[in-house]
Structures are given as structure tokens and as C-alpha cells.
């Protein structure tokens, strides 16, 4: 009597046949992993099923797959829980998304993941020579900020889940950008600004992330790649004032300026201000801004025609009754010399104690 059914997507490019789904029975207690299930099937029923795996303990990052459509490590997913989430208890297992399949559950990590990682110059470019005859020692607290990015095991699960990559295969992607932050946040690296400028100007760089949390949701190591991308943006705009051709800088400035001035979002000004580095005047006079405004014109007209937006609403936006409070908060918080960031990855457990 089988405990679980695995529905595995099989594909052998050398056979010349298309991919197909095949069901396999597994006998295992619920706390064992989906990987254990696949290995049992290989052992008992069909040794030709291809899967890449090694440590079985979520350390090596080899066994990334999609289980019931959700990207995950097979070794890190309990078979009982997977069955609860599967349709009629059946657990579907298919190769990771956004990358070519080599055979069955094995994907080509080189074609997408490693190529993108190399794109971000994944090594330290020292700012200065180490002191004569000594190592370059960094204070431990200076490295705290990058420990989360350093926890990455390069399993590719976030790449598989990324919803931007799904529509733009050229997007540098969550894993590689998290890797980029690992060096941008490292005080020993001497190329912070050049790295940020490169990633901000690339149309498939930091501003091609749609902020959908898909990578955060699936990462088995809590690297939260999207958060690292947001940090790259924060550094690019806040620390270096990099004005990029993708309006990343403009969008952030526009949004921030509008809130500081009105307290709520004045949507009609967001577009021109985003196209003009945050400035309404530049956003209506600069040639590149005009081109983008013209491109958006049909949408604006649709909005007016539908009655969603009236010309008055587009021009006049009410200030909050207590806008002074919002402005004061902006002044107080933005006048700090040091940026205060609370990273739960780092302080999580400590904070719990502090609350008691």
C-alpha cells in the first residue's frame, strides 16, 4: 500500500520524444523528504530518472525542483506536507523554471544561473593594498550587513521562481543581484559606485525587479534576494545619486517628493516626475521625458474617457489636513547621519528577548 504518489515530469532530449508525466508510488513516513521519495522510486522502480543531489540536508543546493508548482529544494520539503498541498494528495515534481532542462529534473545551471552570477563581477575588487605583511582585517560588525547575502548556496530556486525572469530572460535575476550586494555592502571593495552604476543603467538590472516577493518566499536560506535588490537601489539613489536611464532614481525621488509635499500619492504627477529625475519641470521638458510621456498618452486618454480621472483631479491634489506632521517626520528621519535599518535576519532572536 503506497503512502504517496509522485507525479514526475520526465523528459529525455536524446529520445526525440516530448516530455510526459509519470506517476510513481512511494512508501515513506510523512516527515521524510520529497527527495527521499524520488530516490526510492529510482531505487525500486526506474533507475533512469535523472535528479541532481548530494547532501540531502539543504546545504549543497543541488536538488532544486518545483513541487506542486512551487520552487524548492526537494530535500528540504517534507513529503507529507507536499501531499497536503497537492491536488488530491498527488505530489507533482518538475524541473526548475526559467532555465533549460538537461534531463528529467536536472536543469542547466550554467545557461542561466552561473552566467548571470558572472555578470555581476562576483569577486572582491580591493579598495587598497593590505597593510605590508598583514591581512586586511575588517571589524566583524562591518560585515553583519552582508551575512544574509552570503548565506546563499546558489541552488537557483529563486531564479526558478522569479516572475520578472519569466517575461524577461535577460533580467540579471535575484541570485546574481543578491551576490552583487554581497560586494557592494563589503567595506573592503573599492568599486561600489561603478558596480551600482552598472546595475542601475542596465535595463535588465536592479530596476527590472517587480518587487513581487517570489524569491523571498522560496529561498531555503532566507537570503531574501529581493531585499538585497532594494538595498542596491537604496545605495544607488541615496548614497551615490546615480541617475539611471531606467527612471529608477526618478521614480524613487518622485514618489518621495510627492509624499513629502502632499502626504498621499498624487498619481498624475508620478509619471512626469519619474521621467524627470523627480522634477516636474524636467519631466515635461527633457526630450527623453517627452518621448515617454507621449508613449503614455493613450493610457492617459483612456483614463480620462472612462471617467476614472477628471482633468481637475489630475491637476489638483489635496494636501492632508495634517501634512505638517508628515513633513516633520520626513525632516527628522532624513536628517540622521546614519541610516537606521532593522534587519530581522540578523537581530531576529535577539529582538524576541528584548521584548520580554
Amino acid at each position: 500500500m503506497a503512502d504517496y504518489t509522485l507525479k514526475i515530469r520526465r523528459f529525455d532530449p536524446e529520445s526525440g520524444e516530448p516530455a510526459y508525466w509519470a506517476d510513481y508510488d512511494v512508501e515513506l513516513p510523512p516527515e521524510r523528504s520529497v527527495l527521499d521519495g524520488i530516490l526510492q522510486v529510482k531505487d525500486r522502480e526506474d533507475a533512469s530518472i535523472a535528479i541532481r543531489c548530494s547532501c540531502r540536508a539543504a546545504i549543497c543546493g543541488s536538488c532544486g525542483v518545483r513541487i506542486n508548482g512551487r520552487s524548492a529544494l526537494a530535500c528540504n520539503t517534507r513529503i507529507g506536507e507536499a501531499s497536503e498541498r497537492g491536488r488530491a494528495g498527488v505530489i507533482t515534481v518538475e524541473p526548475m523554471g526559467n532555465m533549460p532542462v538537461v534531463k528529467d529534473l536536472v536543469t542547466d545551471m550554467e545557461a542561466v544561473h552561473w552566467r548571470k552570477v558572472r555578470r555581476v563581477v562576483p569577486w572582491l575588487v580591493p579598495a587598497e593594498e593590505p597593510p605590508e605583511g598583514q591581512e586586511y582585517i575588517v571589524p566583524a560588525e562591518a560585515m553583519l550587513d552582508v551575512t544574509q547575502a552570503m548565506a546563499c548556496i546558489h541552488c537557483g530556486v529563486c531564479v526558478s521562481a522569479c516572475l520578472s525572469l519569466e517575461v524577461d530572460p535577460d533580467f540579471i535575476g535575484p541570485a546574481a543581484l543578491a551576490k552583487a550586494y554581497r560586494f557592494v555592502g563589503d567595506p573592503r571593495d573599492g568599486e561600489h559606485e561603478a558596480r551600482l552604476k552598472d546595475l542601475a543603467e542596465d535595463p535588465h538590472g536592479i530596476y527590472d525587479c517587480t518587487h513581487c516577493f517570489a524569491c523571498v518566499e522560496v529561498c531555503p536560506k532566507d537570503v531574501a534576494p529581493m531585499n538585497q535588490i532594494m538595498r542596491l537601489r537604496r545605495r544607488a539613489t541615496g548614497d551615490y545619486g546615480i541617475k539611471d536611464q531606467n527612471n529608477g532614481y526618478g521614480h524613487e525621488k518622485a514618489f518621495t517628493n510627492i509624499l513629502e509635499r502632499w502626504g498621499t500619492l498624487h498619481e498624475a504627477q508620478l509619471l512626469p516626475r519619474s521621467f524627470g529625475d523627480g522634477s516636474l519641470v524636467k519631466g515635461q521638458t527633457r526630450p527623453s521625458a517627452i518621448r515617454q510621456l507621449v508613449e503614455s498618452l493613450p493610457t492617459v486618454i483612456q483614463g480620462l474617457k472612462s471617467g476614472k480621472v477628471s482633468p481637475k483631479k489630475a491637476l489638483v491634489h489635496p494636501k492632508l489636513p495634517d501634512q505638517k506632521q508628515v513633513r516633520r517626520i520626513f525632516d527628522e528621519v532624513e536628517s540622521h547621519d546614519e541610516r537606521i535599518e532593522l534587519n530581522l535576519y540578523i537581530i531576529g532572536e535577539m529582538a524576541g528577548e528584548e521584548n520580554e
Partner: protein
Amino acid sequence: MKLAYWPGCVSRGFTPELHGSVAKVAPLLDLELVELDRANCCGAGVIAEHNQELADTLNARTFAMAQQVQGAAGMMNICSTCQGAQSECQERLDASANYRGEVNKHLEPEGLSYQTGGEWWNKNFLWILAEEIGFDALRERVQRPLTGLRIAPFYGCYIVRPSKRLGFDEFPQRDAYLDLLIEALGGEAVEYAGARKCCGFPVITMNRTTSLRQAGRHLADAIDAGADCLVTPCPLCHLNLDLQQPAAQKFVERDLGIPVLHLPQMVGLALGLEPEELGMGKHVVSTADVQRKVADLAAA
């Protein structure tokens, strides 16, 4: 039930039909809404991208105002993005007493302070329907079951991810509520690939191609799955899926033309309200087909 009510910016801006339909629907559900008309924008993740402490302080201000509403069970929002941005700030504020103290100092001049602990919550209208009212109680209030209407749910990222932060430990079905709600109202929930994917709105000014390919693809998937319309609890998704739909056609190289309802509009139809009361004429993609089907239901 009395609730502090945060409508968000977009519901009073480019999707006024959303704000209006909540006003019509709430009394039919015995929800007494005290609108936080002095509260500020949640920052939509953009302010957090700019300065985390600023985003946390601005939302702490909103939470503190909501906590001052006498007799309110909690705070309600009507936007997946507000839910996500505010939950993110709340998680940090709740995690550290020191940090919370620092943030609250900025609110002191107005006598405001965000207090953690206890039963206080901030829930999207969808969660209110599922958890505070309940689908069984809702079923009893249905005046016009949406029989035969094939509705594709579109959740919006921020209300389903990250699940750890969004209370899925306590409410594991939060990523299925929209499907369950459609069924409770008598409609048919359409299964399609895009239900929990990204509408693309956050990068509409930064990468139009990525943005509208996303919107276009999900709309096309819903059409191919036989949907009559989509429904979403997120007005920002609505902007990309409805307002931008004509433009999105170009990026997926096919005709689209599928109406997108706001969550309270769908609820309102089932509770017997008329489409015009729910602002269904204020969409870019005509809702006429949905209106006709609903009228046929009433006639039958």
C-alpha cells in the same frame, strides 16, 4: 463591526470606483467604517526602498491613529499593496521594543504612539470577509448568486507573499480566500496560471516591457481558461490589468478585452447592488458583458 478604515491613495485617486463601492457594500455587511482621512500613504514599498525608518514611521503614524478609534475591532485596508507594505513595517515595529521606541519618538508631538501586542490587527477587506464575517454568514446575505459567472481571481503579490510575514501560520488558507469567496457568492472560480503572479505595476515607469508583458500574459491566460472577468483586491493591479490593458495587448501580440472587477464590486453585485452603484461604468475595459450576465441572473 466597527473598524478603523484606511482606503489608501489609489482608491481615492485613479480607481474612485473602488472607494465608492466599499461605501455601498460596508453597510450591507454591518461594517461601520471610521475613515482615517488624516493618515498618509503606506509608501507602497518605494519609501521603504528609499529609507526604511521613514516608511516604518509613516505607517506607525497610521497604526497609531487607527488604535485611537474607540471601539474599533481593528484596521481595515482595501489594497493588497497597502497590506504588504504595512505588514512589512509592522513586523519590524513588533520585533524590537528599542526600535519601536525610536520610531514612536517621532510621533510624540501629536500624542500618537503605536502599541504592539494584544489583539490589534490590520486586515485587507478580503481577510475581513473570510475571517471576521465568514463565508457561511456571507452566503446567507447573498441576494443575487453569481451563478454561471466565471471569475478569475487575481490576488496581488503583497497579500500572499511572504507567507511567513502575512500570518499564514495562523490562517493557512489566506492564499485561497479569493477562490473560496467566489464560490461562496455563487460564482465559478477559474483556475489559470496567473492568479498569484505579479501584475507588473511596480515597474511600469522603469521597464514598460517587463511590466506589460506580465499584465498581458495573465489576462491572456485568464481568457484562455474561459473567464468572463477577473477580480482583484488590489487597485494597483487593477491599474495595470484594466487601465493599461489596451497597451498591454501590444506586448503579448494578441487581443485581450477582459473586464477586471474590484473585490467589493463583485461582493456588491452578489449582495444585490446595481452595477452603476458600484461604479462599473468607470472601467477602461467595458464591464457590459458582466453587467448583462448579472441582469440575466436577476431576470431568472
